[in-house]
């Protein structure tokens, strides 16, 4: 089974509840992971503030952190290979990496638009 690991920044909420607005990228990404899981992909998600040990244990993630600091987050690892850093990938990217047939309803959505950079968590500068 394919495993997708997501390493989130130290944010208190992955919805963006605490930010200036609900970040649609975060909500969309959460939905994308749900969809991947429904396709039989194993999903593991860790947040820096709650499970820093997982960030240290993964050599690729740790190396990315050492190189550029928290700008490396979020990081996505698929079956042990670092696929992206500093952004939440779009659904078609995720599905390609995981070897799952992309869903047709998203055909019109350019990847560049939905893969927006994340400078920090929604509450990264201070939890609620």
């Amino acid at each position, binding site marked *: 089974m394919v495993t997708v690991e997501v390493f989130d920044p130290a944010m208190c909420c992955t*919805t963006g509840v*605490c930010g200036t607005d609900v970040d649609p990228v975060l909500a969309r990404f959460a939905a994308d992971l749900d969809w991947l899981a429904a396709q039989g992909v194993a999903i593991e998600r860790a947040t820096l503030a709650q499970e820093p040990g997982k960030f240290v244990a993964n050599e690729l993630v740790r190396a990315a952190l050492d190189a550029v600091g928290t700008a490396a987050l979020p990081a996505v690892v698929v079956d042990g290979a670092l696929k992206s850093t500093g952004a939440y990938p779009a659904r078609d990217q995720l599905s390609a990496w995981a070897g799952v047939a992309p869903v047709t309803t998203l055909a019109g959505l350019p990847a560049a638009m939905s893969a927006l950079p994340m400078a920090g*968590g929604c509450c990264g500068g201070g939890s609620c």
Partner: protein
Amino acid sequence: MTSAPESTGTVARPEILTAVLANPTRYLFFTGKGGVGKTSCAAATAIALADAGRRVLIVSTDPASNLAEVFAMGDVTGSAPVAVPGVVSLAVVNIDPAAAAAHYRERVVGPYRGVLPADAVASIEEELSGSCTVEVAAFNEFVTLLTDPAVAATYDHVVFDTAPTGHTLRLLALPAAWTGFLATNTAGVTCVGPVSALGQAQESYAGALATLRDPAVTTMILVTRPEASALAEAARAAHELRTLAMTQQRLIVNGVLAAGTSADVVALARAGREADALAALAPELAHVLSVDTVPLLARAPLGVAGLRAALAPAPPDAPLGAPLAAVTGAPGAATTAPATTGRDVPGVALRDVVDAVAAAGPGLVLTMGKGGVGKTTVAAAIALALADRGLPVSLTTTDPAAHVDDVLPDPPANLTITRIDPVAETARHTAHVLATAGSHLDAAARDLLAEDLRSPCTEEVAVFHAFARTIADAAGRYVVIDTAPTGHTLLLLQSSAAFARQGQSGADAPAATLFGSLSDPEHTRILLVALAEATPVHEAQALQADLARAGLAPFTWVVDSSLAATATTHPVLRARADQESRWLAEIAASSPRPPAVIGWLPEVPTGAAGLRQLTAPPTAAPATTARG
């Protein structure tokens, strides 16, 4: 322990707090805004119970607790209860939730120092520095005390000089917090993380909640002052606790002035203000089981002897003069008193602040302070004074509409008042989040998310946005706002993804603009409003430190309702005025500029005429009474 030394000082029959002491439950929680005398009331209650032969533990969770000072003890920090000298069977334990939270934070972060890059470690620490972590850490300590059989076996009564917040209680009462949702959720929540990480068993929380709700064992004691704003706050707390099924409530009105036969204008006016406030008690307070009235003392009771004296005051004829004489001279020697009052108070006038704001050109003035210190009144007075100079002014307030109409029902044409309703703004934000982020959650997770959205941060963020829109509409005007975001909110916004993308999204443009303005001291002036009393000063210092985390500093402090700036000769009020000097000195040391000091006013300053008293030129007759 020996019973010999204290027998003479033991209170046989307390004359105050009689309702609270009549039939006390095992657990007594004292709750109220800072500065209402919560700690003194809790300490007096604990002493009276111990003197009646009960075994009592008094608990403080205030990091800046003055419990040690109230009991005239040395250091009472540490997790083990310490016996209070001079009282048989009374022990005190001072829990510092900030320290507990810091300990937890270090446990999480410590192993990764030097392992993860510095910015990653810093981001974890900041994440775990929020008020929720501290709040939950405090509640964790409550839980231990409420559920530990050893505590129940050792003490007949446990007196808490604080109470958990409604937000914490609601959060912990939600079953979804305990269903494993935490470990697997993709929705994420703000406050539940610390709950799980601080790690009490679910049964402990459930047991603690049941104990809090059991009227046979727990009483919530609301402490307030005989002032309209403080009573409104008590009513709000009473209502919130009732909705959480904590219905066993009692009220203490602390610091009621006995004007007696005094001819002192300030004393008579104050007694009148208090009587008016108490006559208009809110309906939410009609449910309380009892109301205890505690007279205003010449000084906050300190030490066991002082607290016992407060519990059984001597008849009003003799006593007041004696302790006061040393401080102010004989009460009869009124001729010397005015020389040390009013104009000798260190600081500047509020109009000097207005001068500085007016000279700087259009910009922002934010008043900041804990509830009840008068920040709306100060904001309205400044706005009016600017408008009186012919400048275009917008006053933006989060106060209820009725209060704004009370404060300034008659604004001049060049003063626009805009009202932001925090409840409506928060509701709008909440509905938006639930409709978007919450749409893919099951019912339990949605409840959790909804409660999370009731955290204080959510309201601050929603209000910040509303302010930003209002300010954007008021370009070129002097904008006075009766509240300011905390440093925590600013840090939270600063790091949010939306701000990082501000160049790509127009939605947050007003917020981004406001954010930029706040850090420009030429454009924005933050005024920290406080009272010259221990707890309000400590709370304002905490707000200042919080602002500093976000790189902001107040322009100056504003001291509201200073008795020292009046010419009262009433013995009790004069003594209180003299005690302000210590806090005025501390404020002067904390404030970047000499603070503006506003004298206590005989009438609640409402309407344009009332507000102009706050910024009036110093032409009023000297040394008569307070201005007005």
